[in-house]
């Protein structure tokens, strides 16, 4: 029981972090059609900037400033880079952000070095929030979950209370026409891209000290958040939330389960030795396959439900 509950909580908090990360990606994708390959790099920038700011002014200013800075950087990337590639189509846009992810990693290493930086959880958030049976649950995890939920609320409000979403979707196909109707499209696009990046930055501020702030942190989550976006349904925010939680919980539980086909089959009295055909597969425990879970899920979803969990369109 203790184990199940704690693992569930761990899974949920990891899932919510994934959501913080993928929400920005989904937002940018659904509105601009740009699959921002460098999204995880902005997450990393958020963490590093937060580290630097927090050593100067403390964690709380960093929580506000770092995402803003990342947002501004994102807006600049849109303004001076992406915008000029836009006319060539989506694949070059994707390639641009792909190249950007290379450059950002290098710049981060240039500025902060090639190894981990000591970005620490602030003292006031360090320590146990509550004790479940004998296991303590850290305050910071709770804080992380809280921020994710607040973020979800904020995005929801912006999207439902403003017309921005419509303008951007329309501009996806006919930017000139939208402009002729009186909307300042370039500025809106810049804001959206910047906003999406800021969300990634916020996730970085939170995730950077919960886990590790290092140059490879972008690569580690990079592919997973793409999985989230596809599994959730390209461009669906609710889908992204569900997929994040699903993957978070799935992966956390998977790590903890030591069953394999062998243990399953031996319950039915089957004798399996290393000579049995397919032994290599049969002997794998669930925890050993944990790393491929998200990707397996991705492939299965694409085969059986190509729209994704909540998607409306197919690719």
């Amino acid at each position, binding site marked *: 029981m203790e*184990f199940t509950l704690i693992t569930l909580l*761990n899974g949920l908090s990891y899932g919510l972090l994934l959501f913080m990360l993928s929400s920005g990606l989904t937002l940018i994708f659904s509105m601009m059609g740009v699959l921002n390959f460098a999204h995880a790099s902005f997450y990393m920038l958020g963490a590093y900037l937060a580290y630097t700011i927090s050593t100067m002014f403390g964690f709380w200013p960093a929580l506000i400033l770092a995402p803003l800075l990342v947002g501004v950087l994102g807006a600049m990337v849109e303004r001076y880079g992406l915008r000029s590639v836009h006319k060539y189509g989506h694949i070059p846009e994707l390639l641009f952000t792909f190249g950007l992810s290379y450059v950002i990693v290098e710049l981060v*290493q240039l500025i902060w070095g090639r*190894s981990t930086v*000591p970005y620490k959880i602030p003292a006031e958030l360090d320590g146990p929030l509550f004790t479940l049976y004998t*296991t*303590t649950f850290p305050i910071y995890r709770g804080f992380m979950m809280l921020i994710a939920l607040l973020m979800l609320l904020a995005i929801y409000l912006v999207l439902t209370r403003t017309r921005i979403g419509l303008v951007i979707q329309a501009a996806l196909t006919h930017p000139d026409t939208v402009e002729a109707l009186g909307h300042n499209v370039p500025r809106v696009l810049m804001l959206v891209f910047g906003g999406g990046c800021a969300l990634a930055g916020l996730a970085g501020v939170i995730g950077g000290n919960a886990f590790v702030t*290092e140059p490879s942190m972008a690569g580690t989550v990079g592919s997973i958040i793409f999985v989230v976006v596809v599994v959730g349904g390209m461009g669906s925010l609710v889908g992204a939330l569900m997929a994040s939680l699903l993957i978070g919980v799935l992966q956390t539980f998977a790590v*903890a389960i030591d069953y394999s086909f062998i243990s399953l089959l031996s319950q039915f009295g089957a004798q399996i030795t290393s000579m049995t055909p397919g032994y290599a597969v049969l002997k794998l425990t669930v*925890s050993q396959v944990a790393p491929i879970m998200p990707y397996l899920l991705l492939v299965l979803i694409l085969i059986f439900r190509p729209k994704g969990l909540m998607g409306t369109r197919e690719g």
Partner: protein
Amino acid sequence: ENVKVAFIDTLSGAFAPIGQNQLKSYQMFAETANQQKLAGANTLEFVGFDNKGSPQESLTQLKTVIDQGYRYITQGNGSGVALALIDAINKHNERNPGKEIVFLNHAAIDPDLTNSKCSFWHFRFDANSDMKMEALTSFMAKDPSIKKVYIIGQNYAHGQQVTRAAKEYLKRKRPDIQIVGDDLHPIGQVKDFSPYVAKIKASGADTVITGNWGADLALLIKAGKDADLKANFYTYYAGTTGVPTAMGAAGADHVKQVSYWHPNNETFSGKEIVEAYKKKYNDDFYTLATYNIVQMLSKAIKEAKSTDPTKVAFALEGMKFNSLNGEDEMRKADHQLQQPLYIATWSKVDGKTVKYDQENTGYGWKTDQKVDTYIAAQPTSCVMKRPEKS
């Protein structure tokens, strides 16, 4: 002549701090060795090549350094890499007689490297994982409070060897101890160990054995601390960069380490080095093998009166050397350095037995036991092919 040694090791990524730390110690020792003319008229120079911790990248770097004329390489962080290097060097030396390369290993401790895979061109200056496990389990065997043990390790050569040896030796020495779980996780990938910690807790283990190092150990311990895991840790590498900070006060008296040297040894031998290193780089010196390599290589060059790798290799074989942990011998049969080992506990600095802390935590290693060379020594299955002695 200036003998250039290529340090092909991890200088970026999760384990970079360890590689950086070792490269710096090499360079510091080479500087003093050159001043003291330990290798006669020859000087040593260590140059870093980043292998990103990958076997394949290491071979690419090996090609590069061979093309640039290097004849000596050192490596250590990762037995996977070492296994690949030993293979590649064997092939190279066979195909390019007269251009042989010698591989000086400062930390890769998979026992195979000096057993089934042993090579004349490879010398290991660390104690191998079986030696360390021998010492560790002998120590554990004496503690009756140990009842349930959980083994966790990185999923690659070294982690697998530690798991195997732990099970084997504990069974031999303390059949009553129950192994309540063992896990191998991807190396350098896991950023959140809390699921593993939940598992350890659920298993009811009172003791954890792990061969993890660097970030993989720091994060494991941090997650244990967060979830209030009470088990004791028996480690190989709690002294590597990042782990001391993660342990802090919470790890005191809970974490043990087996090693072939640490600064708070019986005579504090090596304290000058520790202090000099700290002063120069504001970092802790912990890889004694780098010292031994510089010293013994210089000595071998001097004795061989040549910088030719083959001759130097012959000179290294069987060499005896007075190091900081006592008298060490490069065993001829398998090129495994024979040396004593220490079991130590993470404890508050008290100025008497624990003088030197790590990472400015105020905590350091306190010797529980020094295990003599002959106790830790292991038999070898090495059948070494030697070149003709010219």
